[in-house]
């Protein structure tokens, strides 16, 4: 299955383009979705796609890119684990004259092209929704992702930026539930014990945690008093929005991210003109506009 030919202008001769992709985590539903779209597009365009799972480790990701370089793939697609820590991979690929594309999120070293969205934006959308619902006044609990990871940092940053505009909104507690539904449920249960009556809204940095919070609030009979908003718009979350359990989620377009990444990769391989940055905007999903996203 492995072709040994060099990357130079073989594409023009109709040989298969080989794309190596390293993904943040294949245990994350959203990333799996992006990857599935990449596969679909790759098949459509006759591209051979080699995917590896970085399992959230920047070090592993760099190693995988090194492997791709050694294998002489035509283009590398990286779904970065970290803004800074995944950057050496970009430098290495560029030094080896292999184009590299960031999909989904950014690195500090600029790649050949970027396809994705800005995580800070997603949190801003979520918090704006909460602020409007609460009329700019109320107590918020924030569930953080795995501490120190890029998505956690950026989503927190976005939330805090919005809060500056609403002095009446206060985060009364924030804690990590490590992106996990079960942990979020336990955390929410514990929070209800301390803050039960004071809470007006919960902002969870991903849907998994948001759904965990919803479970705990429902069990405690508090759901109708507390707004819960999270990010990603995974199918479960859309379902919960439909049922009115989750008040809103923020849609990140996996389909476009995946497809555009492969399209850009093909252009790069063939030496055709391409967009240096393809920004795919986030969208707020509520019961009202839900139909669009299902």
């Amino acid at each position, binding site marked *: 299955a492995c072709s040994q030919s060099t990357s130079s202008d073989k594409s023009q001769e109709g040989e298969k383009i080989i794309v190596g992709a390293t993904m943040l985590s*294949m*245990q994350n*539903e959203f990333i*799996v979705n992006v990857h599935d779209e990449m596969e679909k597009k790759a098949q459509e365009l006759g591209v051979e796609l080699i995917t590896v799972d970085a399992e959230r480790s920047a070090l592993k990701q760099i190693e995988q890119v090194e492997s791709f370089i050694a294998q002489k793939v035509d283009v590398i697609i990286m779904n970065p684990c970290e803004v800074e820590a995944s950057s050496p991979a970009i430098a290495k690929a560029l030094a080896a004259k292999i184009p590299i594309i960031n999909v989904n999120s950014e690195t500090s070293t600029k790649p050949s092209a970027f396809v994705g969205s800005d995580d800070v934006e997603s949190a801003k959308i979520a918090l704006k929704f909460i602020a409007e619902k609460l009329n700019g006044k109320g107590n918020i609990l924030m569930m*953080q992702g795995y*501490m120190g990871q890029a998505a956690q940092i950026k989503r927190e940053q976005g939330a805090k930026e919005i809060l500056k505009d609403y002095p009446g909104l206060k985060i*009364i*507690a*924030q*804690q*990590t539930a490590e992106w*996990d*539904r*079960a942990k979020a*449920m*336990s*955390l929410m*249960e*514990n*929070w209800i*014990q*301390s803050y039960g009556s004071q809470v007006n809204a919960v902002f969870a940095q991903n849907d*998994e945690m948001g*759904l*965990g919070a919803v*479970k705990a609030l429902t*069990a405690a009979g508090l759901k109708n008093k507390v707004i819960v908003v999270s990010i990603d718009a*995974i*199918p*479960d979350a859309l*379902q919960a929005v439909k049922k009115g359990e989750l008040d809103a989620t923020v849609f990140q377009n996996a389909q476009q991210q995946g497809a555009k990444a492969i399209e850009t990769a093909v252009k790069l391989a063939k030496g055709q003109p391409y967009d240096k940055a393809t920004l795919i905007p986030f969208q707020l999903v509520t019961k009202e506009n839900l139909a669009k996203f299902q």
Partner: protein
Amino acid sequence: MKNTTNTYFDLAGGSPNLRISGFGRFGIFVAFGLICLALSLITPNFLTWSNLTIVVTQVSINALLAFGVTFVIITGGIDLSLGSMVAVAGVVAASFAHPDTYPVVVPIFMGLLAGVVMGAFNGFVITRSNVPPFIVTLGTMTIGRGLALILSKGRPISNLSDSFNFIGGGQLLGIPMPIFILIILFVICAVLLNKTVLGRYMYAIGGNEQAARASGIPLKKIKMVVYTLCGGLAGIAGILLTSRITTGQPNAGAGFELDAIAAAIIGGTSTSGGTGTMAGALIGALLIGVISNGLDLLNVTSYYQQVVMGVIIIGAVVLDSLNHKK
């Protein structure tokens, strides 16, 4: 002559060497009590009925795993595949738990079976080869994670029936189901360990494998049973977790093994085998759960939570061990 004999028996009655029936070490109970006392003084939210039921419910999954791994550690083994078994059992159970498909016993049975099969696989490889349990179960940990992802195609399996969701989310007489399950399994495991031939053999194997063999104990059979039992308990834990979060998650349970082993060891089970109790495992799990609950109630910042958690756990066990120095 008669006198001497009598003295011996008299002494026995008052001997502090006697194991406090079923409880192993005592100091950890003191440590646990102190922590609870401190929390009730600091925060009024701790010592409430609703908070206590919540803590015990949260602890139940880790406690079940701790029971299973206590059996394993007593025989001198280890099981690192707990978390993966939880995930596989959860995903399998969820696949059969959609509304209007099968009656609720089917997902329960299938989840349990998944755990049992994986546990039996561990036992089989460990008893048929010379490979250390650490490596075998580390292998199964990786394999199991892969299986859970393959079976679920990497996506959570949701939309489960209400009767299935009742297992982890329902209440009976105002008490959450997980607490019932926890109590029942605790009694079963404690009886198994303390009152049956099987339990005695576990202690013997872990205490001195050669002497156990020379006493005619079927080592392989017992070990096989023990790993299978551990798998079964992990299976139940997986069902409970899935039902509680109403989703079969392929990446559920990651890292659970360390918490469960920690609970067992905090409760006085020695990693070198031959000692340990179910009450200890339970108290170990409760200790971890209470600390974590307390830190949330007190809203300690996440970074510091970890530091405090580590310090308290080490501190509790230090206290326990001081209490047990002669």
